[in-house]
């Protein structure tokens, strides 16, 4: 009998406290900065073109093969406006297939793709499954319109991929200084980067960063392609 009374006491206590339910969809929780919605591409506002060069690294590392990417010559490069020799031509992501594993973000050499950390990255009801296959304008829209304010991109997997992110010498020096200030590996993830939507440069400046400073350019990426293509 006492046990039942104890149970009732617990229930009464619970009845008197504030409800914990959030009345979605009229009321929405704020998503954490690291929230992983579906992947979107980033827009380079300086040159007015996507960061993506269409190098297909993400498509190759995608565990579920949800991406299709093609590459073309960059007209802006011919005009001398851009440093990117090649640029993405077509980019399709099948959102119905994507399992949001974040591997495409991790392997991207150009910081061109991020996981959408806004509500648009998760609220994707459509009447037709085909409508979930996103093309290039749809993937770039979030970044272009500024809805995607501060994407999360930790310099993660640097050690794993052996990849040194693109850095100018000034940037590298600044990053090295920042790294010496930071106690632990990596930038502070929950402070949004200053220059949105450009993601954080990595906080660590590995010794080979100067040697591989050119790795960020498309030509070097093609070299990487060949190197990685053996697998």
């Amino acid at each position, binding site marked *: 009998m006492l046990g039942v009374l104890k149970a009732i006491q617990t229930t009464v206590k619970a009845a008197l406290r504030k409800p914990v339910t959030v009345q979605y969809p009229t009321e929405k929780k704020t998503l954490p900065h690291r929230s992983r919605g579906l992947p979107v591409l980033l827009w380079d506002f300086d040159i007015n073109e996507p960061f993506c060069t269409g190098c297909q690294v993400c498509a190759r590392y995608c565990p579920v093969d949800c991406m299709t990417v093609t590459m073309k010559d960059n007209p802006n490069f011919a005009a001398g406006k851009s440093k990117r020799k090649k640029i993405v031509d077509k980019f399709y992501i099948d959102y119905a297939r994507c399992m949001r594993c974040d591997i495409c973000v991790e392997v991207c050499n150009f910081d061109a793709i991020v996981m959408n950390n806004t509500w648009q990255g998760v609220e994707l009801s459509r009447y037709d499954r085909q409508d979930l296959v996103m093309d290039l304008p749809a993937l770039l829209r979030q970044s272009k319109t500024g809805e995607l304010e501060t994407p999360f991109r930790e310099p993660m997997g640097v*050690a794993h991929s052996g990849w040194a992110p693109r850095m100018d010498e000034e940037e590298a020096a600044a990053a090295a200084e920042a790294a010496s200030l930071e*106690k632990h*590996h990596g930038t502070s993830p929950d402070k949004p980067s200053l220059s949105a939507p450009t993601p954080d440069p990595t906080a660590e400046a590995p010794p080979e960063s100067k040697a591989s400073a050119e790795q960020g350019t498309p030509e070097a990426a093609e070299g990487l392609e060949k190197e990685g293509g053996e697998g």
Partner: protein
Amino acid sequence: MAIETRPPHESDLETIDINVNVGPQHPATHGVFRMVLTIDGELVVDVDPVIGYMHRGNEKLPENCDYRQVIGYHDRTDYLAQFNTEHCYVEAVERLAGIKPPERAEYIRVVLAEMNRIASHLMFFGAFGTDIGLFGTSFMYAFRDRETIQDFFEEITGERMMYNYFRPGGVAWDLPDNFRQRCSQVLDSVERGVEQLDGLMMENEVVLARCRGLSPVTVEDGINWGLSGPMLRATGLKHDIRRAEPYSIYDRFQFDIPTGKQGDVYDRLVVRLEEMHQSAWIVRQALETMPEGPIMAEGLKRVLRVPAGEVYMRVESPRGEYGVYLVSQGSDKPWRHKVRGASFSNLSALRAMSVGNFVSDVIIILGSIDIVLCEVDR
């Protein structure tokens, strides 16, 4: 095995056994699981478990994936203890490849795996309450606290369920700055919730009447049937892989191994409840001593190629012994990838445990195994 459990017939009326399908689409089966019960009145004389509805080729798929891509599939085996399964897999790869993850990564893994154990056991209490007739009450209590933990995980990894956060050699990215404070805050709130669950269920006469003495399992039977985890510890055997064969950094922490007395359903509840407190204790110890430093082993190649060899790695997942058997032939993909699901082995004891009980009790016995069908079928 022939178990004669029927009471002698008292009347001359001729009776026949009938088959009752429970599942596959039945909430009491915790997933897509089907039991064909042969019943004599209310008495269960035979149980025929039918599995395989959730088979997705989760052991074959990784043979075409590189070592990093497999982590996502491990989240999808035991989807209530994802960090534990990831931990098992990345440890297996690390042992095979000879990688030593940095200290901080080990601590992060242990903290998250133990938090995940609490979340998983909370899920068990919620679902078990539904089985024994508490309807939504315990479910809502448990889910409130599980939600806190999931929010916490989302702040770290970005995902609520399929974290994909551990990597061979470390973890994918570092913890947020306020991690320590946030983690103790979550632990405090969860432990208050666990106290409430304790008050709601453990001394409740209704729960006692339904669970105590139901399907007791002896230590010998438990070992012979291949039980592991809380199911085995409920029989009274003090066996925990974290202690018996310490992996990662579990040898640095103090914790007790809760055991039951007679291995009945109630003992399984008690063991799981106590395990949540022990996990919280481990997390608190780890938070105190967690070092700063790198989170990824140095000197790893762009594509991880694992030298030829084989390894079997097992961890103590909330459901029992979760194992990964990997064979590598030197390429960047596993050549063979076998998963030992704890639920699968525990479920195999279902027939022996439930024959001779009433239909309503069989549902409880099934619930007390705490199966995850994605881990059973893989």
